């Protein structure tokens, strides 16, 4: 090797040459955890709930609803519960004729959201006493309240079924 004197050139780079403190901003940007939207649709494509956590205009919303319906309904039980969707992914689960879909970042935890859906469905089931599609139609304004109790600002807010139901029943008793 050619001696380079005091030149920094041969100093191994791994020896910790960085005097600047380490900053870890962008390392995590891919971890930005956020639900983009939650959709409940029936097999025919009728929307039973649409909760948006990103700004879209009405045309975009309609387009997303149609696209999600198209990618989700063609899948069968042997498929995964995850579908790549644009730069995101849809985690979905089918209950009778209803598809519950959550759109999240590709790096998000698939199984955690899959069970978040189930947790939500169990709460609806308890709250509406054997929930069926019609309950969601006639009580659409209450479904929003359930969603807000469990998910807020695109994040999971509360996961305890007991606590959510207690709160919902308390609200139910108010005038």
């Amino acid at each position, binding site marked *: 090797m050619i001696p380079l004197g005091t030149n*920094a050139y041969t100093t191994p780079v791994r020896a910790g040459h*960085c005097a*600047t403190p380490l900053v870890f901003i962008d390392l995590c940007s891919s971890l930005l*955890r956020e639900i983009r939207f939650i959709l409940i649709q029936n097999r025919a494509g009728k929307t039973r709930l649409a909760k948006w956590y990103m700004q879209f205009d009405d045309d975009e919303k309609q*387009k997303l609803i149609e696209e999600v319906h198209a990618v989700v309904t063609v899948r069968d039980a042997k498929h995964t519960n995850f579908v790549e969707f644009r730069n995101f992914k849809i985690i979905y689960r089918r209950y009778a004729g209803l598809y519950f879909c959550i759109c999240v970042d590709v790096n998000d935890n*698939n199984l955690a959201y899959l069970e978040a859906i189930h947790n939500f469905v169990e709460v609806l089931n308890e709250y509406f006493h054997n929930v069926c599609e019609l309950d969601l139609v006639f009580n659409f304004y209450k479904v929003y309240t359930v969603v807000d109790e469990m998910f*807020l600002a695109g994040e999971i807010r509360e*996961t305890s079924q007991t606590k959510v139901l207690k*709160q919902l029943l308390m609200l139910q008793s108010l005038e």
Partner: protein
Amino acid sequence: MPAVSKGDGMRGLAVFISDIRNCKSKEAEIKRINKELANIRSKFKGDKALDGYSKKKYVCKLLFIFLLGHDIDFGHMEAVNLLSSNKYTEKQIGYLFISVLVNSNSELIRLINNAIKNDLASRNPTFMCLALHCIANVGSREMGEAFAADIPRILVAGDSMDSVKQSAALCLLRLYKASPDLVPMGEWTARVVHLLNDQHMGVVTAAVSLITCLCKKNPDDFKTCISLAVSRLSRIVSSASTDLQDYTYYFVPAPWLSVKLLRLLQCYPPPEDAAVKGRLVECLETVLNKAQEPPKSKKVQHSNAKNAILFETISLIIHYDSEPNLLVRACNQLGQFLQHRETNLRYLALESMCTLASSEFSHEAVKTHIDTVINALKTERDVSVRQRAADLLYAMCDRSNAKQIVSEMLRYLETADYAIREEIVLKVAILAEKYAVDYSWYVDTILNLIRIAGDYVSEEVWYRVLQIVTNRDDVQGYAAKTVFEALQAPACHENMVKVGGYILGEFGNLIAGDPRSSPPVQFSLLHSKFHLCSVATRALLLSTYIKFINLFPETKATIQGVLRAGSQLRNADVELQQRAVEYLTLSSVASTDVLATVLEEMPPFPERESSILAKLKRKKGPGAGSALDDGRRDPSSNDINGGVEPTPSTVSTPSPSADLLGLRAAPPPAAPPAPSGAGNLLVDVFSDGPAAQPGLGPSAEEAFLSELEPPAPESPMALLADPAPAADPGPEDIGPPIPEADELLNKFVCKNNGVLFENQLLQIGVKSEFRQNLGRMYLFYGNKTSVQFQNFSPTVVHPGDLQTQLAVQTKRVAAQVDGGAQVQQVLNIECLRDFLTPPLLSVRFRYGGAPQSLTLKLPVTINKFFQPTEMAAQDFFQRWKQLSLPQQEAQKIFKANHPMDAEVTKAKLLGFGSALLDNVDPNPENFVGAGIIQTKALQVGCLLRLEPNAQAQMYRLTLRTSKEPVSRHLCELLAQQF
């Protein structure tokens, strides 16, 4: 537990919904809705004041109508009135309406904010939560301005109820994400971290999300959260399955909170404190151990919740990438999942293993699963699972298993889904090149690719095989022989004809000794495919034929006969006709020597990053963090260059001289106008003698291979001879560059082509090429609207001293741009001396009567005039030492803004313009480059060295040049690219 009855409380609403459901047709539904709207309108306008209940009912009906997809243009005021009701049910409907139908009417916003303010101050937790949820759902800037200061107080106040804290945390998160500038940091931040210790798990669940988000922007301020998160996690992980009661989900304690805590930890490197780290490692081990325990329930919910934690744990282990033991354990666990009966688990295991494969500690462990993964590729039913398997094979590939993986992928390709064929083709092509020990294997592989999936073999792939064959003389004979054999097949793919045509034209002489592949046989084999091929392929074959005349004089008569045939000479396609005419003339006019010089073997291609790799990356799409609306564009526009390609109709005169813009042979811009037209071109070339060979129009093979093949609507001679008469307006006439101008400019430091700018109206694409101190740039202005742009005038402005440093000549463009049309502008650029600021591009036009103006920075930076310089290590060090004055060196240490990938870095450095010197730096991780900046007045020698530190995610960049400002400027330009 009492259940809710249908539509309880609002009978009128239930009746209305039933009516709508009973409508037999869309028309009936609309009729019913219009009737209802009229009714509601009259009620709202009526003299009688409505009671709260009626108001609530009507607002709720309006909301229902809106959700059915109909426009609602009234009722906002009534909804706002409901906000000040003191009944929960009325307030709730009011807030819901506001959240769903956000309205930007400022008077309304004032009223809404007022109502929210009252509710926040009400000390009624139910009302406070409603108000917080409304802010979180709307999240507008106005709300941020009104409440960002209040919410932290509510969040950390001692007397706030738990449910209010939960909502406040997430509400603040929303505001912080939308407008971080509005959220004041302060004393509350320290207290927020301590919410990780809160007794109420729901509060912790909400707070972790907020803290994770805050950490990203201010990692140092929130460092204390590491130890708190670890101890919380440890308490959860080690608790028995019933300890956490309400928060136990199917025998798994607090799965969502665990996942969130594990993700929070992924914002930081491993804990420095040994005790904390020990505790964390213990947690991670516990999770891995639990995965081996028998399940506590057979329900899928149990295993899903458990595995959600497991996968997040593995992500953290991979993120740390420092514990070999844990990495290998993770890999073994995933290996078990590869054969699990749950498709979800197989999918996730494949996906997760992909990242494990890139860690040096677990790469070998991943490789042991190769057979299972290959099997998955063959047998999985869900295409997305097969795709993950292909990804994993690609990730685990190295020299030891490349042949096996490539042959399995090739086999898979025969039956692969159409959707993923192209990607598999790219992957095979990359692996074959990367791990080729002998290049005959590489050539075989690519030819197999064309045979099996010719339609999916993109230009990049077959260009690349030509580049490699041209650059490696040890494989040329083999390539000629193999491609000759492949062409024997009765039906071979057109891409095979292209590759065959090119290779035989260059290296056909290497197999001409064998009577079975004598020159006439080669020619007739190629020519037998000619008539079935597309124009582009036929054009390439014509070039092959003229090369044959040079290589094999005995074929001259036959080939001249072919060229002379009416089907060529009078071909309707102008490109074919021109080639036939020119080649025929060339073969009859030129002497053997001239012919031999003109048609000399192609020189080796400069080594650069495989364009296939770039294509694969492009296919994979931009990073996950980008906005969803990226997907709104149609898939074809993902190809940046494709997006600016003019439609064929705008290329009125395809000239064969499109290659390299004719710059090498270009006269100085001030030269007198030369006669244009293809015929004259040829004459010019001959009058200049053979020395002018590079400028010869018919060097068509270059045009094919050149990555940028800009359309030349006119002869390049004419272009050069027509300097723009338009006087540049002074800088005072134009507006300041748009705020993103610097960012846009940065995108072009290491590349020459792409979309420079895009908004709803206009797209500006760039293609450029630089040689020595000269450059030519094509700007494509696309009118994205359906309306004509008028007074369209793009001009280039030189601010400050730039006029003396850089000469840019523009051609005027048409003042009208039709809707959907694209116009092209050509810029001739000459670098007179070193310069620091780029010229400005000012675009002005009228759209629908309204004047539009836009100022951008023209992507011309000093590094464009780099000439790469190869040198031996010794020379490099000598020069490095010579440039040791402090002012000659510029250095920067900076954090990586992109994933640190050696191939990408290499590509960027080459794109930057310097040569990359191997075997110079003792540390193979480092990059060393050299080049000369060419200006008219002077040349500046530049040496550079880039030292990545993967562990710290930092780089150190050092530049030494003979000119101080240049060092600094180059250093700044380059540092922003990583």
